[in-house]
């Protein structure tokens, strides 16, 4: 461990905001990358289920 305490870690001889900011932004960008496809997958599943449901109910209606 390079740092002796938490304060040292956040300060990093004045560079802390830069370093931690860079890491923060990195994980935000990666998080967005991870998030969008997941949302889309959920929505697609939902849409397809609805389509299925409508189709089935149509069929029943015709009977």
């Amino acid at each position, binding site marked *: *461990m*390079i*740092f002796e305490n938490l304060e040292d*870690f956040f300060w*990093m*001889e*004045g*560079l*802390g905001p*830069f*370093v*931690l*900011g*860079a*890491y923060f*932004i*990195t994980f935000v*960008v*990666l998080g*967005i*990358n*991870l998030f*969008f*496809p*997941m949302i*889309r*997958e959920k929505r*697609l*599943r939902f*849409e*397809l*289920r609805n*389509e*299925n449901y409508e189709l089935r109910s149509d069929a029943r209606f015709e009977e």
Partner: protein
Amino acid sequence: MLGWFHRLGSPKTFFGMSQSWPKTFGLLSLVLLALGTVWGLLFAPPDYQQGHSVRIMYVHVPAAAVAQSCYLIMAISSAVFLIWNIKLADWAAKSMAPIGASLAFLVLITGAIWGKPTWGTWWVWDARLTSTLVLLLLYLGIIALRNALEEKGNDGRPCAVLALVGLVNLPIIKYSVDWWFTLHQPASFTLTEKPKMPPEMWIPLLLMAAGYYLFVFSVWTSRIRNEIISRERKTAWAKAWAGSQ
């Protein structure tokens, strides 16, 4: 070999095969990224010249490498699409563009954050940053062209051509920009070219790079799967997929 290639090119086969990829590789990549982050932030030594700002290297440098690899992968997919007319390759290229663009953007941002304490400004017209900016513009152009084409109901073949022409252009840009900046300013000291990097510095770098690659792979397959589902939503297996879970 060719048969295997064609089977992989079938959306249904790929969809069935890649069922578990996003989750598996995603988790693996998060573990690697977490390890690399902890190591890079807490255990790697500060640089004798740059101090702690060298820690930005662990997120910046692998991202730069991966952003370029993403372009290469996209261009290869485009070539496969153009040559063998495999639709899946087109969707793969389409899925890769936003990932590559976001990584190029990340490289620019982290580079700027690194530049502020090191050079004293957020932005310098440094060769590396400029060619990454051009890479980002190339990605944005491809994404914009794709959107415009799909709005008109056309397929992505012009996009594939653009990706391939861009692939030829990238090394030229890299070279010309490098040359220009060495003419205009004395070579600034760089992040990567260290005479001897101790293992406690390159191991987290390696961890982060592997993490990025796996992360991209996970997101990429997940996007491709979404693309497949939205295009093949009328098929029975797509409906079965929606019904499961």
